[in-house]
């Protein structure tokens, strides 16, 4: 794969000679035909959403990057057998979900409780906080971190399918239909799955709402 697009470069739209936009499935068919630029395009388009999906599934940014790369490697490996029977993103998120769920199962007993302490920078995100800029008082910052920790741990505590559905719905902006396809559920089952998940979150986070 000689010509991977450098980081930060914009995603050039892939268009046909007739000037029509190609679907991701069409672009995947180009990858299948050996077009490495087509693969670069998919990487540039989906690396950010995949890293953020994996981060919320695995709650660790280094692991998230590793898993997101693994998704792309699997896409690349399966290029020869790819059939555009489902929407490209459905296929992509199915690969991602399987990887994330397996990772969570494999490391279930290794993962420490999420803790966000006031004194240390957030190890998981490397995020710098507004505290340093003096925008928040130490007390406000503490409250904010407590709230963040509650959000993470309550999402984490949801049953596996509810958690995956919430992460796809809330953070990946995927609709019921798409989530249903990824999880191989009916649309109505997905609706009630999400409804129950949000009800639980609303109840458990009510002190912060």
């Amino acid at each position: 794969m000689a010509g991977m697009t450098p980081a930060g470069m914009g995603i050039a739209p892939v268009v046909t000679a007739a000037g029509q936009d190609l679907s991701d499935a069409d672009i995947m068919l180009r990858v299948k035909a050996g077009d490495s630029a087509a693969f670069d395009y998919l990487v540039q388009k989906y690396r950010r959403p995949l890293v953020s999906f994996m981060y919320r599934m695995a709650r660790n940014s280094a692991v998230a990057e590793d898993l997101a790369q693994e998704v792309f490697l699997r896409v690349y490996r399966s290029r020869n057998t790819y059939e555009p029977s489902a929407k490209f993103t459905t296929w992509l998120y199915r690969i991602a979900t399987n990887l994330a769920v397996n990772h969570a199962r494999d490391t279930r007993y290794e993962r420490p409780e999420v803790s966000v302490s006031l004194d240390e920078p957030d190890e998981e995100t490397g995020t710098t906080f507004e505290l340093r800029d003096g925008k928040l008082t130490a007390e406000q910052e503490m409250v904010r971190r407590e709230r963040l920790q509650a959000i993470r741990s309550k999402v984490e505590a949801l049953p596996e399918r509810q958690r995956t559905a919430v992460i796809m719905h809330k953070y990946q902006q995927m609709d019921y239909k798409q989530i249903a396809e990824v999880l191989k559920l009916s649309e109505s089952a997905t609706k009630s799955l999400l409804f129950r998940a949000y009800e639980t979150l609303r109840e458990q986070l009510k002190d912060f709402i």
Partner: protein
Amino acid sequence: MTCKQIREKMPDVAAGLAGTTSEETRHLATCASCAGELEEFRRTMALLDEWQAPEPSPYFDIRLQARLREEISRPQAGWLAWFRHPVLASAFTVLMGLGIALFVADHHGAFTTQDDSIVAADIQAQPGTAVSDLQTLEKNHDMLADFDLLDDLQVQNNVTANP
């Protein structure tokens, strides 16, 4: 329009993934319970927004590129891949050694196969003596050890063939 119908749609409406139809808007205007529920959903969604994800690191593409190169340069599961497996490579070395030993032994007329047993006669030991019996046991032991290695090799091949 029932309360149940509109509530099912609330996660999408609260997340901004769907709008409300005029019928739903009318229902929300008259049903305080549903309006309150939607408001709570909105607040929950806003709270969940606080959990931000990091951007991909600047090394993401470089690492992916390296992993892809490794993937592409990895030889397909042909006979050459066989040499890359350390266990198989050492088993191969043993087999080569065994082959050379057999070749050399054959030239010296050392091994004679009789009824599936191997009789060692490279040193001038009289058949039927204690020395020749010990030599036979020694050779059989070596041969059985080699057979174990061959068994291992067979298993490893199966593993490689059906990953």
